[in-house]
């Protein structure tokens, strides 16, 4: 186990290096730069800014400088948000997105797993069809539509929940609903199909033949086997959700990290692009390792090598 984790960590370093390198060169291939704006700036001023941030140097040299700084934990200053380092921005915005995203994932699990199970148990009945329709909507309807509808009905018409910001628990309800809709639907579908598969397995018949009640068969024998695909999905999904959604954050005016990804790209804020990308990549890798470990705990057949 320990050997496996060490191995995965070494691999993670290689992966993150590859992600950083590819991102670095790709973003520099994109035309434009951080200091272009509608207002004409004098060429001297632009040159001075570029010199300050080292953008006048050859690409390869900039790459080497960035990498060596990053290795020492220095991800640089934001090119657009003056006076803030990339680390400052992530440290400030990530907790907001993480709390919102974490709650959403929890909601998705709490809703998705039981509903998927119910759909499987009531296969072909009304409840199954109903859950399937909800799941299909959840997957098909884009989040900006969900957000707008929520805002219109619960925010404007019924005036139940506030529509802007994140200052009380009430503020969380609509963004959480919007963020958890898709993962809930996805988990429901995963859970339904894997549960159906498990319910048809021979060991479920054995459980029944032992005289176990339907309840015990389901919770002890079926759930642990059926939940495996959900675990695989939840890892990366958690990484994406806790780093924030641009759309949801924009609509509900939430000061989260999701917006920063897009802002950084649009503004060619090179250091912030690198910072957020490396951060997301690291999170995904960590989640995948966690998924593997949880998987091993749930299913003894898995060998971690």
């Amino acid at each position: 186990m320990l050997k496996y984790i060490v191995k995965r960590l070494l691999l993670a370093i290689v992966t993150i290096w590859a992600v950083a390198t590819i991102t670095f060169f790709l973003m520099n291939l994109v035309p434009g730069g951080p200091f272009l704006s509608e207002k004409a700036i004098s060429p001297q001023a632009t040159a001075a800014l570029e010199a300050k941030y080292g953008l006048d140097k050859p690409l390869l040299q900039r790459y080497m400088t960035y990498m060596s700084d990053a290795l020492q934990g220095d991800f640089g200053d934001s090119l657009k948000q003056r006076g803030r380092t990339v680390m400052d921005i992530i440290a400030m915005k990530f907790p907001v997105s993480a709390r919102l995203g974490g709650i959403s994932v929890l909601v998705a699990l709490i809703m998705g797993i039981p509903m998927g199970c119910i759909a499987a148990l009531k296969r072909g009945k009304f409840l199954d069809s109903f859950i399937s329709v909800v799941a299909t909507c959840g997957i098909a309807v884009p989040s900006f539509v969900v957000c707008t509808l929520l805002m219109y009905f619960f925010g404007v018409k019924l005036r139940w929940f506030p529509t802007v910001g994140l200052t009380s628990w009430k503020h969380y309800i609509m963004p959480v609903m919007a963020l958890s809709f898709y993962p809930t639907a996805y988990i429901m579908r995963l859970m339904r199909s894997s549960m159906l598969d498990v319910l048809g397995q021979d060991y479920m018949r054995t459980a029944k033949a032992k005289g176990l009640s339907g309840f015990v068969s389901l919770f002890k024998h079926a759930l642990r086997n059926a939940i495996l695909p959900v675990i695989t999905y939840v890892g990366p999904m958690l990484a994406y959700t806790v780093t924030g959604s641009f759309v949801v954050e924009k609509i509900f005016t939430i000061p989260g990290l999701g917006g920063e990804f897009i802002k950084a790209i649009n503004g060619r804020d090179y250091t912030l692009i690198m910072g957020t990308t490396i951060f997301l990549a690291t999170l995904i890798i960590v989640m995948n390792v966690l998924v593997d470990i949880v998987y091993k705990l749930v299913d003894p057949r898995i060998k971690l090598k």
Partner: protein
Amino acid sequence: MAEYLVEIKNERLSFFTPAGEVKALNDVSIHLKEGEVLGIVGESGSGKSVTAYSLMGLTAYPGKLIGGTLEFNGHHIEKMSEKEMRAIRGNEISIIFQDPMTSLNPVYTIGNQIEEVILLHTDKNKKQARARARELLELVGINEPDKRLKQYPHELSGGMRQRVMIAIALACEPKLLIADEPTTALDVTIQAQILELMMELKDKLGMAIIMITHDLGVVASMCEKIAVMYAGKIVEYGTTDDIFYRPRHQYTKGLIRSIPRLDTTEHEKLVPIEGTPVDMLNPPAGCPFAPRCEECMKICLSQMPPVTEFEGCHYTQCWLIQKEEYEAEGQKG
């Protein structure tokens, strides 16, 4: 105390599928004394497993019992609620399934899966259940039981897993053990070991066994009585000697002709039963075997033959026998 441990009378069971009613069991009667071994043979879909499963209330949806009585050890199975059935399953009646590779839950240890049934049906505590599980593993001939208890199914071979299934089945000392093709998925040497083990345990524990199989060799060596099933009916029933030496039904005769024998010469061909099994959605009006029967008569196609009884418990359902008896009576009179 009733005469029989198991007494199934005129059981009718159908599967109501979207394509129509499939009469899986049509007037099946079986009885079995304590400690007896009954073999049920027949081809796939003949109703062997359904008969046994219905005794445990394990018939899968959309199967439904529509007639007959099932008595087991004084219980009327057909009238029992699901909750009452649960108290019997794994306790008084146990079952061993065909495929040991898939019949154990892959995510729990062997020990957990054996103890589960002990904890459920007895008032033993965890520690006692573990001790009993260990004892059971020894009983079914598994070496290093302490180590095995902590292992998962995938760490054991097929033969060992089937031994574990037997251990689970025997955990509460059932009065009846149903073995649903217990050796089909195992290789031949392991098959012999498992059968031997079952017979040994039967003698030790004194339970009755219903052995479901399509291997006539297995029933010949193990069973006292044999029921030959075809298309949801018992076409012939009798002691092992009756079935092997005095078969009366054409289907039984055909089955016996199709067994390879040690004394055949090299170039002798096995005689298969021609034709295909019955379409259970549209069974023929008369004897279900008639379309494949070499001696088929006109009446066979339109009417089901009545039961003809011989000495002992031997009986069959065939018009040919009726005809023979009629002719014999004609000669006498």
